Structure formats: structure tokens, C-alpha cells
């Protein structure tokens, strides 16, 4: 749940990048950190990683951007460790999540891992008494620049085949393609949600 501090006119939102191991979640944050411009404040990218550069706990990138007039809007971007054994850690990182970017690996041989990770996301949200219908999320089909990738239509069928479809983007995060499009879309969905809730409650 986003933290709205009326006294200091501050809105803090938490966006979690989720997905299978080696799918490109950390790369997304690295590219945002390296390439974002015109933001009010950009913090350090903190990575809690193993000696082989696999995410152990999470990566964390705080950014303050001008999203709402008169409000400081602080975005906290997190990744989860993708490896199956770190499920308890993923549950901890999901605490207080406002929006999710699911980073899927487009390579054919990763489809089973994508589906398993997406199911794991749904289960972990349920364990936090949340569900995907309540939380804005965006799908990112990463590594489109590699050979042997599955067609986007096939990935849509596997991961986005539901009544209300989530926005999806093809990407090549290592080349910073699709990274900002994805981040701006989840931001837009989140702000829309706050406005709708605000409208309902103040009406």
C-alpha cells in the first residue's frame, strides 16, 4: 500500500520487478539507474548479490520524480531473487508492494520457468492477502534481441491470457530497449489507481 504523508506532501510507492532467474530484472534497474534523466533525485543502486552476481536478497533503487504537482513522489524500485530456492525472500520483498513488473525471458527454453515464476507470484501475493486483480502490473518480454525467442503472441497466450489483460512490452534490457516504456507504464497505472481510489473516497 502506497504511503501518503499529507503532512509532508509525500507519496511513496514500491514497485517490484519479479520473474524467473537470469531474466533481466537487475538489468532493468541498472539501465534505469544509468540512463534516467531529469529526475529530482536519484539514489544509489544497492544490490545484495552473491559472489557470482546473482541477486541474493534484492536490488534497490530509490528515485524521486515529478509525478504529481505539489507532491514529492518517491519511487522505490526493488527486484526479487529469481532462483526458486529464494521464495521466502521473495515474499519479504513483496511486503507493501504497490505495482509489479513481471520480467519474462523470451527464449523458448525459458517458457516453463516463466510460467512457474508467474504462478509463484500469484501464490506469494495470496500469502500477503493480495491478488493480481488488486495490484497494477505490467509484463515485459525481455531478451527480444536474442535468437530462438518465442513469438510475442505465444508469450501473451502463456502469461497474459485472462479476462483483463495487462499491458505488455517487448524489451532488450541489456540495450535499454523497452525499459523506460515499461517503467512509465507501471507508473501510469499506479497513479491512475491512486486517483480512482481518491475519487471514490472523496466523492
Amino acid at each position: 500500500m502506497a504511503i501518503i504523508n499529507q503532512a509532508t506532501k509525500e507519496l511513496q510507492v514500491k514497485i517490484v520487478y519479479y520473474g524467473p532467474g537470469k531474466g533481466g530484472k537487475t538489468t532493468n534497474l541498472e539501465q534505469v539507474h544509468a540512463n534516467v534523466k531529469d529526475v529530482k533525485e536519484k539514489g544509489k543502486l544497492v544490490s545484495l548479490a552473491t559472489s557470482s552476481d546473482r541477486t541474493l536478497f534484492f536490488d534497490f533503487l530509490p528515485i524521486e520524480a515529478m509525478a504529481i504537482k505539489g507532491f514529492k513522489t518517491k519511487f522505490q524500485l526493488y527486484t526479487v531473487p529469481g532462483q526458486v530456492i529464494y521464495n521466502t525472500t521473495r515474499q519479504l520483498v513483496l511486503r507493501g508492494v504497490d505495482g509489479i513488473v513481471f520480467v519474462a525471458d523470451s527464449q523458448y527454453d525459458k517458457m516453463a520457468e516463466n510460467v512457474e515464476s508467474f504462478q509463484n507470484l500469484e501464490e506469494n501475493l495470496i500469502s500477503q492477502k493480495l491478488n493480481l486483480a488488486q495490484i497494477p502490473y505490467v509484463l515485459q518480454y525481455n531478451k527480444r534481441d536474442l535468437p530462438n525467442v518465442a513469438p510475442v503472441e505465444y508469450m501473451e497466450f502463456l502469461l497474459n491470457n485472462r479476462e483483463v489483460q495487462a499491458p505488455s512490452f517487448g524489451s532488450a534490457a541489456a540495450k535499454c530497449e523497452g525499459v523506460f516504456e515499461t517503467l512509465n507504464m507501471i507508473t501510469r497505472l499506479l497513479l491512475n489507481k491512486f486517483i480512482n481510489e481518491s475519487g471514490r473516497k472523496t466523492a
Partner: protein
Amino acid sequence: MAGLPQLIDEDIQCLDGALGDLLERSEATAALIIDKGGPLICQRGDLERYDTTTIAALAAGSFCATQAIAERCGEINFSSIYQQGDHTSILCRNIDDNLLLIVLFRAALSVGAIKYYGDSAADLIATQLQKAQQRDPGQTVDLVSMNVLDAADVFRKGT
């Protein structure tokens, strides 16, 4: 799990006062109130020395991870973690279901005193948060006037 209530001036003044009092009595260097999801809510003290946004995110993760370990060892009462440093020590203490109190203090100070004064501060903060929770659960910020189209390009890529 009820979320953190929205905070108004009265709440922030109380939280700020509780942290100021804690620092004055304990001689600690800095004190933070953070959400267990990672965001920083309120802070006081010598803040220039620390990246408190990152400390908040890491402390929340550390506390929740240690609590999860303790639960797996059959420990259900878990209230704090303490890092004894050579120069700076850190105490993370539970406030309520949502919040943690983080105190950074010189290693030469007694952790017993920090815990003692931290307990009083945490009780005061928890009471104020309960008041905030009960005040008006439906109260929210009016964001309706905002044009979301303006937010289509919040993050821009450098060339």
C-alpha cells in the same frame, strides 16, 4: 494486515517529538521510523552522515528476514535486532504490525539505555498510529485534479 494510515501534521509532530526526545535522552546519533516494506516515514538526528533511504530499505529487509528465521526456530516473540559496531551500533525495534524504529548510536553508548528509551518512544509512536488509524480510515488525499496523461513520461531516458 492493516496498512499504514495516512499521516497528518498532528501525527508527524508527535512522531518527530518522540524521536527528538529519544535522541536527547539517549544521546543516540539518529533515529528513524520506517515501514516494514522499506519506506522511510520520519527521521531525526545527524542525518547528513547517512543515506537513510537505503538504510530504511535494508533495515526493513534485515528485520523481516531475521524474524522469519526466528519463527522457523519456534520463536514467536521477536522484538528487535542489534548490530554492535566498532564506531556506530544499530538497534532495530518493532513498533507495531507496520513500523520499525531504527536507532543509530555511538558504539561507546550502552545498548541497554538505547533499548530503555527506545521502548518509551516506540510505545508513544504506536499509540499515535492507533489514533491515526481510528481517525478516519476513508480519509485520503484528493488527487482527482491530476492529469494522468502528464504522468505518461515521468521517467525519461538520457541520450
